[in-house]
C-alpha cells in the first residue's frame, strides 16, 4: 500500500470510528472457510516441513468438531512478507495456515519451524474460532527445540510458570502435537491481543 492510496481518507483523532463487533462463526463455518490448501503454510514437499496436529477440547474434555484453527508465523529466518516489517518484506512467504477441525475435533497444519524474532523465541500466533466462541481466542505455539530461548521470551515469561507448558508443542510422529483446551483442567493460555 502506498502513501498515495492512504491519503485523503484519514479521520482526525476525534473522529475515530468504532470497530465492527465480532460474532461467532457458528456451526456451519465448514461450508465457507476451509480451503483445499488451507493447512499448507508451505508448499507440499518443502524440505524440513512437518505437521502440527492437535485436538480442540471443550470444558468437558469433549472434542470440538466445528472449530477452525488459523496460524501465522515468520519464515525460517524470522521474516515476514509484509510492508510493516521494518526489516523489509520477504516476497512469497505465505506464513498462514487454516484448518477446520474434523469430526474428531482435530486439525492439521503443515509448516516449517519459524525463525527467532528480535528478542523473541520462535513461535506461531494462533486464532481459534468455533460455535460458542463469540470472538476468536488467541494463543501461541512454541517448540520444544528452542528451550533456551524460552527462558528469556517476553511473552512466555509473562505467563505463570505452571501454565507455560500449554503453549509448547510436544514432539510426535511426523512433527508436533498441540492440543487446545478451551476451558477447564489444563486450559490453554489465551491472550488479549
Amino acid at each position, binding site marked *: 500500500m502506498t*502513501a498515495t492510496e492512504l491519503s485523503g481518507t484519514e479521520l*482526525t483523532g476525534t473522529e475515530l470510528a468504532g470497530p465492527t463487533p465480532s*460474532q461467532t462463526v457458528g*456451526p456451519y463455518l*465448514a461450508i465457507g472457510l476451509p480451503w483445499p490448501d488451507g493447512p499448507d503454510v508451505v508448499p507440499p514437499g518443502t524440505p524440513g516441513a512437518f505437521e502440527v496436529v492437535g485436538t480442540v477440547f471443550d*470444558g468437558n474434555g469433549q472434542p470440538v468438531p466445528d472449530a477452525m484453527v488459523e496460524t501465522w508465523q515468520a519464515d525460517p529466518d524470522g521474516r515476514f512478507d509484509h510492508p510493516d516489517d*521494518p526489516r523489509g518484506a520477504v516476497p512469497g512467504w505465505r506464513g498462514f495456515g487454516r484448518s477446520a477441525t474434523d469430526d474428531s475435533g482435530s486439525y492439521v497444519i503443515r509448516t516449517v519451524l519459524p525463525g527467532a524474532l528480535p528478542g523473541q523465541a520462535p513461535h506461531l500466533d494462533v486464532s481459534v474460532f468455533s460455535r460458542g466462541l463469540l470472538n476468536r481466542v488467541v494463543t501461541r505455539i512454541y517448540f520444544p527445540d528452542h528451550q533456551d530461548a524460552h527462558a528469556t521470551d517476553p511473552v512466555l515469561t509473562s505467563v505463570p510458570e505452571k501454565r507455560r507448558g500449554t503453549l509448547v508443542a510436544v514432539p510426535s510422529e511426523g512433527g508436533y502435537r498441540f492440543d487446545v483446551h478451551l476451558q477447564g483442567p489444563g486450559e490453554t493460555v489465551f491472550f488479549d*491481543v
Partner: protein
Amino acid sequence: MAVPTHHVAEAGTLPQYRSDPDGSQPPLDFPAYRSTGLRHPNEPLILLPQRLTEVTGPVLGPGRVGPLDHDLTRQHAGEPIGQRIIVHGTLRDGNGRPVPNSLVEIWQANAGGRYRHKVDNWPSPLDPNFTGVGRALTDAQGHYEFVTIKPGAYPWGNHDNAWRPAHIHFSVFGRAFTQRLVTQMYFPDDPLFAHDPVFNSVPDEAARQRMVSQFDLDNTVEQWALGFRFDIVLRGRSATPFEEPHQ
C-alpha cells in the same frame, strides 16, 4: 490536528493498534448463548503486547478468488430462489483508512434459512442452485461487492422457539493479525433482534448497530436487485509506535 496520514514502517518501529472500546465486543462468557458455556476460557486473558507477529498478517491476494466467487447467484446451472440482493461496502480501519486488495469471505443460508451443511437438517429445502459461499477482494479504495439472495431466518435449539435473525457471515483479515475479524451482517429492522442472544451479546447499542446493514437505494438496480450497504471497521492504529528491540 490530523493524525499521520501514512505509516510506512520506520527502522526499528512497529505500528500499534488500539484496543477495542469497552462494550464494543461480545464477552466470551455469555450464558444466554448456551454454547459459550463449555467453550469460554475460565482463566483471564493475558495481555500480548503487539510485536512483529501481531502487527503483520497474511496478505491473501487475487489467487484466492475466482471470477464468479463474488456472485452467489451464478455458481450453478440455474438461479437460486429468493430475493436477489447486492451487498457492498468498504473495509476500513478505525482511522478511516481503506484496506485495499484484501480478502473478504462470506457464507450464508439460502432463502429458506437452510445451510448446505451436513448437520443442518431442519425441514426447509436445500436449493440446488445455491451453495451460499462467496469470496471477493477489496479494490484500491477498500470497496467490496457481492451479489447473492437474502438469507432466511432459521430455528436453533438455544431456547424455546429460538430463531436466528437473517444474517450473512463475514470473515476479513485487515492488515495485521490483531485486526482479524469474523462477524455477521444483519438486515435492517429485523423483528428477531430483540430475541437473539448472539446479536445482543454485544453490550453497546451503537456497536450492535454497526452489524446491521443499511438499505441502499442508490445501489439498488432497477428491475433486478435490492442494494444493502455494510461497511466494516477494523481496529485503528494508535499514534505511538512500538520500539522494536534489536538483538
